[in-house]
């Protein structure tokens, strides 16, 4: 494995727009606004110093009630060089992020999962539909304010009572 991870090279290349996260200790981590995300991913994949060809995972996070509420966490791996990198992308409410399916094909289902569970809209995604829940399902189950046992209806007598203000439909955010 080659020596020190050239984290400074990323910071220098995107002067002022990309910062590091000092609280993370297990791997290098950069924080990036959604506007720069695609440029950063392309740079990381194609630059010979990084060669991040393997997109391992996309994780949506909801920090309700603190702000910014949403975050996307990308985990990259470089098969040639053996490096891992974490990219954090904080999002506003309602959450919107650019898609990276054209950079790594595998992002397709990961982004659909984040959309399904958190309602994060990926602009430019070729096929943004729910992946786990059925298409008519209302609400975003992994959000912190979604009850663990769901909302009460005729199939779910143990769910919580739904206040009308909490109702989210796909139409509300798209």
């Amino acid at each position, binding site marked *: 494995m080659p020596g020190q991870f050239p984290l400074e090279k990323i910071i220098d290349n995107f002067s002022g727009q990309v910062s590091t996260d000092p*609280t993370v200790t297990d791997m290098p981590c950069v924080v990036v606004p959604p506007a720069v995300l695609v440029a950063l991913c392309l740079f990381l994949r194609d630059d010979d110093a990084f060669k991040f*060809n393997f997109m*391992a*995972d996309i*994780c949506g996070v909801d920090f309700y009630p603190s702000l910014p509420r949403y975050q996307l966490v990308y985990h990259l791996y470089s098969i040639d060089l053996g490096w891992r990198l*974490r990219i954090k992308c904080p999002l506003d409410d309602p959450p919107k992020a650019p898609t990276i399916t054209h950079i790594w*094909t595998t992002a397709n*289902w990961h982004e659909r999962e984040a959309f399904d569970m958190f309602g994060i809209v990926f602009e430019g995604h070729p096929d943004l539909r729910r992946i786990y*829940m059925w298409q008519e399902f209302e609400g975003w189950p992994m959000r912190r304010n979604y009850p663990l046992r769901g909302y009460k209806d005729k199939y779910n007598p143990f769910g919580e009572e739904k206040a009308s203000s909490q109702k989210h439909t796909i139409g509300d955010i798209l």
Partner: protein
Amino acid sequence: MTDVNVISESNQEHGLSREVLMNLGPQHPSTHGVLRLLLQMDGEIVKRIEPHIGLLHRGTEKLCESFTYTQIFPLTDRLDYLCQPSNNLGYALAVEKLLDIQAPERAQYIRVLMAELSRISGHLLITGALPMDVGAMTSLLYTMRDREMVMDLMEMISGARMHTSYCRVGGVREDLPSGCVERIIEFCNIFENRIYDYERLLENNRVFLARVENVGNISGEDAIALGLSGPCLRASGIDWDIRRDAPYEIYDRLDFDVIVRTDGDCYDRWKCRVDEMRESLKMIRQCVAQMQPGPFLIDDPKIAFPVDKDLLAHSMETHIHHFKLAAEGFKVPKGEVYSAIEAPKGELGFYIISDGTEKPFRLKIRAPSFVNLQALTERTTNMKYLADVIAMIGSLDPVMKEVDK
């Protein structure tokens, strides 16, 4: 019963072409669970595949947010139900990284031993199930017979055949029972020859080869872009194995080869797994030989239950710790960690964000089957007919419980 919707009809020069939408599954025996595929067919030729998953979605990640760290172990059992000790190990390693502790050496050996046993158990299923999907029924009966030996070992070691929940944060639940090592060695001796039997049974079987050879080829570049990992990636010629490239536990002390094949077709993905079982046997033998007596659980009353149960009756302090641990669990310092292991299906990653309490704030499971299954949607070469799709599903070896989480 298959639903058929005609979506277009056109008179082409070779006669009538009629494209239909066809439903495969979720109750189809070759979809390995409840996978539903929507196929756009032109006669026997597949034009487009649209997988519909989520029929087994249990909201594991949401449940994890309301469980303590120890309570999550049984949930990880239910991800890939063919190789539970691997899932336990992946999760335990992530929590241990957060706590900054390490399991005792003997525990690491036992965990690796169990993980490799479960790899054999998982690979045995596809060794028999892929031929069965394409029409060779016999092989599954033989592999299931041998899988029974692994199940018996699991039962002997952990007390459960399927959902072992054997790992704990900081070690394993119990030490290996007496007489277990001999049984494992006996299993290795029997099983080594059985692998040759499978190869003799299937490698010269012309019907099996015709159905899987040069079917569903995935190039190395495509495989990486699709995020494939594990045997599916190595069958496409990419030499990457987390056990060797970023060794966890005691894998760096074991001597094994990473099986890499070149064609990336269904046959290579199958063969890659058959060969990996041989490497797993090698590793199990080395584990048994290198293992030394010693503690199997970390000696920290705030994280693990006391090994000596008599202490509970005599020591008030032990009693208090035991009560606190059982009632509340242990607190994990604030932070986040991503830990990946080489599960039988590929890279199994756990990303945990801890907010300093005894329950994870967010736990994301990077399930290898979920990512591998995506390869179905892309246009892989030599996957033209409906029969090839069945071979492709079988060779990708998805476990739907892991796909749906």
